[in-house]
């Protein structure tokens, strides 16, 4: 069994799995039940002056039979009195001294921020998270993402907090910004010990077409909310990786669409030390952490890593600029005729959405005019017919295949289409071609010759 214990910005945790600041971390009772289920830490639901919430506040995106691909909310920060939250934080820390209890904060004036910091630290928390990310409601009042979108304000408020804080400070960033690295750099400039990201993405969930009111509906109106859940993971991964690449070794707690140990491992490989989870717990409960712990352990063991720390940042070096990719690398689609079920989704996807190189029927058809491969191609060899799906098994015109992955992505049978490597010539990047002066592609705007 690998060692799952980890540290982010000086906050120690028995494992990398934390509850994000949100409804699952709203009360002491919830946080303690989560710790009992296996969560290593929790970021308390954002504290500040208690607010009033609307009735009806969530909306969800279901996709192809799956529930809650994405979740949207118009909820604000805590609606419970500060004294009650502080009492519960103290109780949780007394009962769970080894777990990480971080408290999320949001308020306005320097005096308020510093008073709040002293109060929650007196309650015994292990760290602070500054909520500069909420993209609805609070930002209209000059807080949340309206701070996170202004690097100057990020640095300034972080420095107010750092001036009094005794525990590590994380700044929670909003994805509703142009350059996430600029925001992270501002946090570091303000003295923050690390960042957590992403908070939710500004969104409108949909429209009730009978009432002509967007969702989630609050009486006769609605408002833009914050979007999260599995659908936002790719956005979050990019932002985490961008900071890991741009600000090496700056501590990151990754958030956004984490639902399984595999998601967590991906965030860690791109530079997060811990991950935080909200939607998956709202959907499936605290119990999901058992498989996250178990699965990460199995994976680390299987890959010879003794500690989760070894995983952090492993994939960052491979995240490059487009111009630094090997342009001579080549893959083509290969269909396994023994597992193909003959749905021909790959055919229609390739014909209409890609490069017209997957066909049905015998292989004596002439190559269509849209040719990537120069010169006359030899007749492609179809797959043997009469396999599992009979003569519905399509075949790939390999010289024509650009290796885009689309057919593999749409094929319902996992493992049926594989992208196979072909010898593509010596490694060369676009930037190298530009430097060598060999980057010109014929057929350009000022090119008068006929490329065929």
């Amino acid at each position, binding site marked *: 069994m690998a060692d799952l214990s980890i540290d982010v910005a000086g906050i120690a945790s028995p494992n990398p799995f934390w509850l994000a600041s949100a409804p699952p971390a709203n009360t002491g009772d919830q946080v303690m039940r989560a710790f009992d289920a296996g969560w290593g830490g929790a970021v308390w639901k954002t504290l500040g002056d208690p607010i009033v919430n609307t009735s009806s506040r969530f909306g969800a995106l279901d996709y192809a039979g*799956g529930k809650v691909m994405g979740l949207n909310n118009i909820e604000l920060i805590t609606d419970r009195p500060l004294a009650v939250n502080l009492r519960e934080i103290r109780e949780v820390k007394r009962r769970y001294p080894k777990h990480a209890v971080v408290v999320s904060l949001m308020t306005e004036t320097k005096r308020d921020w510093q008073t709040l910091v002293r109060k929650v630290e007196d309650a015994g928390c292990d760290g602070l998270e500054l909520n500069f990310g909420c993209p609805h409601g609070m930002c209209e009042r000059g807080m949340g993402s309206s701070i996170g979108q202004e690097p100057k304000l990020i640095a300034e408020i972080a420095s107010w907090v750092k001036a009094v804080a005794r525990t590590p400070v994380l700044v929670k960033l909003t994805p509703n910004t142009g350059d996430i690295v600029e925001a992270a750099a501002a946090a570091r400039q303000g003295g923050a010990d690390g960042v957590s990201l992403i908070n939710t993405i500004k969104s409108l969930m949909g429209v009730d077409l009978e009432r002509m009111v967007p969702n989630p509906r609050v009486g006769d109106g609605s408002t833009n909310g914050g979007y999260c859940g599995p659908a936002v993971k790719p956005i979050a991964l990019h932002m985490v990786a961008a900071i890991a690449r741009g600000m090496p070794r700056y501590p990151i707690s990754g958030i956004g669409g984490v639902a*399984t140990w595999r998601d967590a491992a991906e965030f860690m490989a791109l530079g997060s030390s811990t991950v935080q989870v909200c939607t998956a717990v709202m959907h*499936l*409960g605290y119990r999901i952490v058992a*498989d996250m712990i*178990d*699965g990460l*352990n199995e*994976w680390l063991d299987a890959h010879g890593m003794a500690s989760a720390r070894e995983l952090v940042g492993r994939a960052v070096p491979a995240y490059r600029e487009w111009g630094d990719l090997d342009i001579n690398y080549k893959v083509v689609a290969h269909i396994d005729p023994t597992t193909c079920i003959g749905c021909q989704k790959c055919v229609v996807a390739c014909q209409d959405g890609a490069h017209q190189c997957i066909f049905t029927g015998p292989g004596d058809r002439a190559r269509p005019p849209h040719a990537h491969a120069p010169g006359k191609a030899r007749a492609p060899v179809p797959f043997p017919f009469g396999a599992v799906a009979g003569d519905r098994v399509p075949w790939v015109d390999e010289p024509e295949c650009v290796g885009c992955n689309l057919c593999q992505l749409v094929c319902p049978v996992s493992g049926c289409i594989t992208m196979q490597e072909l010898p593509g010539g010596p490694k060369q990047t676009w930037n190298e071609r530009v430097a060598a002066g060999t980057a010109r592609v014929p057929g350009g705007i000022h090119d008068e010759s006929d490329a065929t």
Partner: protein
Amino acid sequence: MSTFLAKLPAGRAEAALPDKKPPMSAAEAKLEAERCLYCADAPCTQACPTSIDVPGFIKRIASGNVCGSARLIFAQNLLGTSCSRVCPVEVLCEGACVLEAWQHKPIAIGRLQRFATETARREAPGLLAPGARGGKRVACVGSGPASLAFAATLALEGHEATVYERRALPGGLNTTGVAPYKLHADAALAEVDWVASLGVRIRTSVEIGRDVAAAQLLAEHDAVFLGLGLGEDTKLGIPGEDGPGVVGATAWIEDVKLRGCAQPPLGHVVVVGGGNTAIDVARECAQLGAASVTMVYRRAPADMSGYAHEMEAARKDGVALVAHARPSAVIRDAAGVVKALRVTVAGAERDLSCDLVAMAIGQSKLRAVATQFPGVALDARGCVVADPTTGTTGHPKVFSGGDCVNGGKEVVNAVAEGRNAARHLLRTWSGTHG
């Protein structure tokens, strides 16, 4: 290490009966696992006699954590592999799946359980490690699922467990009785070999009460578990029953599972009985190519103790049923060859012509060996009296479970009872009794 699997003869008749529920590929398993709703307080778990965390193990398949999935299954049921294949899931976990109430096909829990446990056993042979040696010494009488679950649970905690089996091959009815299209003898023995790898010692061809006295077993061990199962097929006691052409159902199935295809091709077969063993024999005969198979049952079809889904499947295999029929004699020709089974249906006598009669009207109880253990009592049916939640009997060192206690239920019940007795002992030994 020589395995029991290696001792199994080749060319067995059972090879002609392919898996009714073939194994899933990884892709299939993931797709099916993603269909599970991950119910809270899940009804499938409640319906499982060993209380496997079904949504938990299915969720782990979906996330790609197959070893974790198998470990979760084995935490409750160390014979999770054979259970996944032999459990009557239609009336257990899958029958309770909430999707059924919603007019959807229930999650294929049994097949997913098979995928997880077989994959993990293949790819991670060291998934479960035997505990450090040097604990207590326990012995099991019989090597069926009840005993194996008992012994393996204790071996994993570092106790020395030895299993004694009177037959040449271990595994109990998993090896000799369960229909081959659910579990072939080779798969049953592969599981026994895996149980042995967890630290359980298995001694075959040793009959307790004959080769080793009960008193000796008691003297040499801290606890003894009786997992005797049931005895010989019962006879009807009608004229002509003794002699060739009339077989006991479990004896005949044992032949199919363990022996070669030496028997002549099956002709017309009559099966007497209305339980699951009767249905199994009938289906096996039909699938082995019998000219015809007729079940003879003394009451109405609705009274049959065999599962409705199994009878339905038997009908699809081509099995006919004659209900309200009372056998009175086996008719043989002058040479003693079976010609027909005489039955009374609605007051009239009828001869059902046939070449083979299979008696599937129950199995006797193995009273003799149980009573060699002082204090162990038998009830009116001849079953060992034991508490199903702790396995305790009238002798402080003797525990029991499985068919010999419950009178004949399922493999998964035997596993639950064996495991419960072992857990009771572990609690007792660690002083946290209760």
